[in-house]
C-alpha cells in the first residue's frame, strides 16, 4: 500500500516537474482573457488594446477583453482570486488604488491578496488649467491659493483616487488649501475644466495630449520632461518632490504558479519594447515603466510606504 502511494506520489511529482516549466514556457497557447476593471474606452482599456498587436506579434495569440466595472475597480479586484488560476485570466491593476481602497474601508480585498506580476506604465499626474485662465504658471497657482485659501476649485476623477491623492499631496507639500471637486470619469472632469466650472484640474498627462491648446499644463509629475510636452516643467524642476501618477500593471489569481507568473511578466515586458506600442503610448502622453515580476516586491514596498503617508493625509489612516 505504502509503495503504491509512494509510486503514485513520485509519478505525480514527475508529471508536475515535467509539465510545470513546459506549460509556462509554452504560455500562451491560446487567447488570454484580460479583465479591465474600468469602463470600455477608458485609459486601461485603450492601453490593453494598444498592447494587443505587440502581444500578437510575439506570441501569435490575442486578448479576449472583458470589463468588470464598479467601485473604482474594487468590484473586479475583490473577485480576482476566485477566477481560474491557469494563467489565461489576467486582470489589469492600478496603483495607488490597490493601496488606498483597502485603507478606506471594507472593499472585499486586501492589498496583499492581489498577485501583481508586472507594472508596465505610468500615467503621470498633471496640474491643468483652462487655456484662458489667468493662472499662467505653477507659481501663479500657488500664489493665488495662498491669497485666497480654499477658493481655488480643482476637479478630479473620484474620491481617494490618484487625482485626489495628487491634490492632497501637492497642497501639503507647498502649504496651500484648495477645494477638491470629484467627478465621474475623465470626460466629465475635463468638460468641467473646459467649461470653467472649476478653476483647475488634477489630471494626467493624457488630458494634455488629448486637449492640446484648449488647456495649459502647469507642471507634470515625471522625472524628466515628457518628449510630447517639451515646454511643460516637471514638479521636480520647481523644487517640489512629486513624481508619480497612476501606475498600471497586471495581476493574476493567487493560484497561478511562480513559473507562469514569471513567463507572463516576461512576455509583457517584451511588449513594452515593441516600437509600435512605444510610439503610440508616447503620443498618448503615457510613460512606460519596466517593473518585471522580480522587481514587483521592491516597487510595491516603496509605493506602499508612500501610500500610507497619503492615506494619513486623506484621513484614511488614523
Amino acid at each position: 500500500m505504502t509503495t503504491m502511494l509512494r509510486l503514485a506520489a513520485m509519478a505525480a511529482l514527475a508529471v508536475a516537474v515535467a509539465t510545470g516549466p513546459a506549460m509556462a514556457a509554452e504560455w500562451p497557447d491560446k487567447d488570454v482573457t484580460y479583465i479591465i476593471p474600468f469602463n470600455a474606452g477608458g485609459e486601461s482599456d485603450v492601453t490593453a488594446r494598444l498592447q494587443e498587436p505587440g502581444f500578437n506579434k510575439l506570441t501569435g495569440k490575442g486578448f479576449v477583453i472583458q470589463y468588470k466595472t464598479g467601485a473604482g475597480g474594487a468590484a473586479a479586484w475583490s473577485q480576482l482570486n476566485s477566477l481560474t488560476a491557469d494563467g489565461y485570466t489576467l486582470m489589469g491593476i492600478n496603483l495607488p488604488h490597490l493601496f488606498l481602497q483597502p485603507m478606506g474601508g471594507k472593499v472585499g480585498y486586501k492589498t496583499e491578496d492581489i498577485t501583481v506580476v508586472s507594472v508596465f506604465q505610468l500615467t503621470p499626474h498633471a496640474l491643468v488649467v483652462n487655456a484662458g485662465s489667468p493662472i499662467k504658471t505653477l507659481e501663479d497657482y500657488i500664489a493665488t491659493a495662498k491669497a485666497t485659501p480654499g477658493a481655488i476649485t480643482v476637479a478630479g476623477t473620484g474620491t481617494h483616487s490618484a487625482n485626489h491623492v495628487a491634490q492632497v499631496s501637492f497642497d501639503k507639500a507647498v502649504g496651500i488649501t484648495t477645494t477638491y471637486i470629484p467627478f465621474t470619469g475623465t470626460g466629465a472632469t475635463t468638460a468641467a475644466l473646459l467649461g470653467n466650472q472649476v478653476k483647475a484640474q488634477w489630471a494626467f498627462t493624457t488630458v494634455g495630449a488629448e486637449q492640446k491648446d484648449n488647456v495649459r499644463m502647469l507642471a507634470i509629475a515625471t522625472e524628466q520632461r515628457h518628449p510630447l510636452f517639451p515646454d511643460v516643467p516637471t514638479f521636480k524642476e520647481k523644487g517640489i518632490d512629486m513624481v508619480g501618477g497612476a501606475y498600471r500593471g497586471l495581476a493574476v489569481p493567487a493560484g497561478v504558479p511562480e513559473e507562469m507568473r514569471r513567463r507572463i511578466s516576461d512576455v509583457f515586458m517584451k511588449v513594452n519594447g515593441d516600437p509600435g506600442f512605444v510610439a503610440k503610448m508616447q503620443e498618448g502622453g503615457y510613460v512606460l515603466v519596466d517593473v518585471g515580476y522580480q522587481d514587483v516586491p521592491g516597487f510595491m514596498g516603496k509605493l506602499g510606504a508612500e501610500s500610507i503617508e497619503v492615506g494619513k493625509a486623506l484621513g484614511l489612516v488614523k
Partner: protein
Amino acid sequence: MDTLPHLLAALTPFNLLLAIGGVVAGTIIGALPGLTATMAIAILTPLTFGIPPASALVALGAIYTGAIYGGSYSAILINTPGTPSAIATTFDGYPMAKRGDGDLALTLANFASVGGGLVGALFLLLLAPPLAQFALAFGPVEYFWLAMLGLTLVSALSDGSLLKGIIGCCIGLLISMSGSAIVGGDIRFTFDSQALLGGVNVVVALIGLFCVPVLIDLVATPDAHLKVGSVLRGFRLREALGITWAGKWNLARSSVIGTVIGVLPAAGGAIASLVAYAEARRASGTPERFGQGEPDGVIATESANNATVGAGFIPTLTLGIPGTPPDAVILGALLVHGVRTGPNLFSEQSQIVYTFMFGLLIATVLMLPIGLLLGRYAFRTVIAVPKYVLAPMIGLMTILGTYAIQNSLDDVAVMLGLGVGAWVLGRAGFGAAPIVLGVVLGPIAEQGFVQAWLIGGATDERFETFFMRPIAATIIVAAAIVAIYPVLAKRLKARVRNSENG
C-alpha cells in the same frame, strides 16, 4: 467643406454594406434586454481594427443608432426597455401593444427613430462647434436641476396615487445610492455584501423592475400576452404616417430636446427621452391619455433617444469628451485606430469626420426599411409563440442578459430580488416607472448637488451658484411649469365650468 466628395466617400459599396450590417446587428442586440448599445459596440469594436478608420466609424455609428432604436422592440412588446434609452417607450408602447396596437407602435417607433436620428445627425453635421460650447456651459448645478426636471415626471407616472408615486421614486433614489459614493467615497446600503459594492447597475435594475413583474403576470394570468386582431394588418403604414404627421411638432420638439440633452456629456438617452416625454405630455391637449397607450408618447421618446446618437458625437468629436457611454467606447476605438479626436480633428482629419457624419445619416435612413422588416418579424414572433414558450424564453434571456453586463452572478441575484420586490410593490399599487425614474436620475441629482455645493462653498456663493446662473434658472422655471401646470390647468378648467354654470 465640399459636401459631394465626402458624401461619395461615405457611399462606397463597402461602407454601405457595413452600414446595413451595423444597423441589423445593432437593432437585434438593442432589442435584447441586458445587451446594451455600449456592449454591442464594445464587443464589435475589435472587428473594426482591420478596416480603415472612416469605415470603422461608419460601422460603429450604424451599430449604435440601430441599438438605440432596437431598444424599443422589447419596450413595446414585453414592457422591458432593451436599452436604458427606451425606458419611457414602455410607458405608452406597452399599453398600445396590450390593446392590440403593437404593430402600429413598432411602426411609429421606427418613423420617430429615423426622424430623431436624422435631426441629431444634421445638428452634428451643421452645428457641432456651437453646441459643444453649450455642453461646456452646463455645469454641476445645471445637471442637478435637469435631474429635478426629470423627477417632476413622477406626477405624470403615478397611476392614481401621487403619494405612492413619490414613495416609489424615493425607493428608486435609495437604490441608486447603494455602493461606494462617487463624491466622498462612503460605502452605503451594501449590507456588508460584495454584490452591492459597485452599486446597482442601471441596466440590471431595469431588467428586474420591468421584466420580472411582466414575467410573473404572464405565468399567473390566463390571458394571452398581447391582444391580437383576427387578421394581421401588416405595417399599418398609412395609419402610422397619419399619426406621425399629426404629431410632427411633437416629433420635431422631441428631436431637438434629444439633441440638446444628447450633447451633455453626463446626461444620455434615458434622460433625453424622459424629458421629451414630460414635455410632450405637458404640451398635449390630452395629457390624461399619456401612459394609457398614447401614440404621441412613443413618438416623443423614440425620436428623442435616437437624436442623442448624432448629438452625443458632438462633444466626442469636437472636444474629445464622450457624450454618452457608447461614445466613450468609440472614442477608445478611434485612439487604437490612431485617430486623435478633439480640437484638431476637424482640421487635420476632416475626411474621416465627414465620411463618418454622412455614413451616420445613411445608416439612419437605412434604418427605415430594415427596422420595419425586423420589427414585423419581432412582432410576429412574440404573438405567434405560445405563452408557455414565451415566458421561459424571456426568463432565460433576462438572466443571460443580466449576467452578460458584467459577467456577474451577483447581478442576476440583484435583478431577481428587485424584480420580485417590484412585483410585490406593484400589487400594492406602486408602479415600476417612478422607481426607475429614481434609479436613473438619482446619481445625476446627487453628484450635481454635492459638486455644486462644494463649488459654491469655496467662494461663499452657494445661493448664486444654485439659482442665479441663466441656464440653471431656465431649467428651474421649466421644472416648475411641468410640475405645477397640470394642477393649474385643472383649476382653471374647473373655474371656467363654475362660471359657466353660475
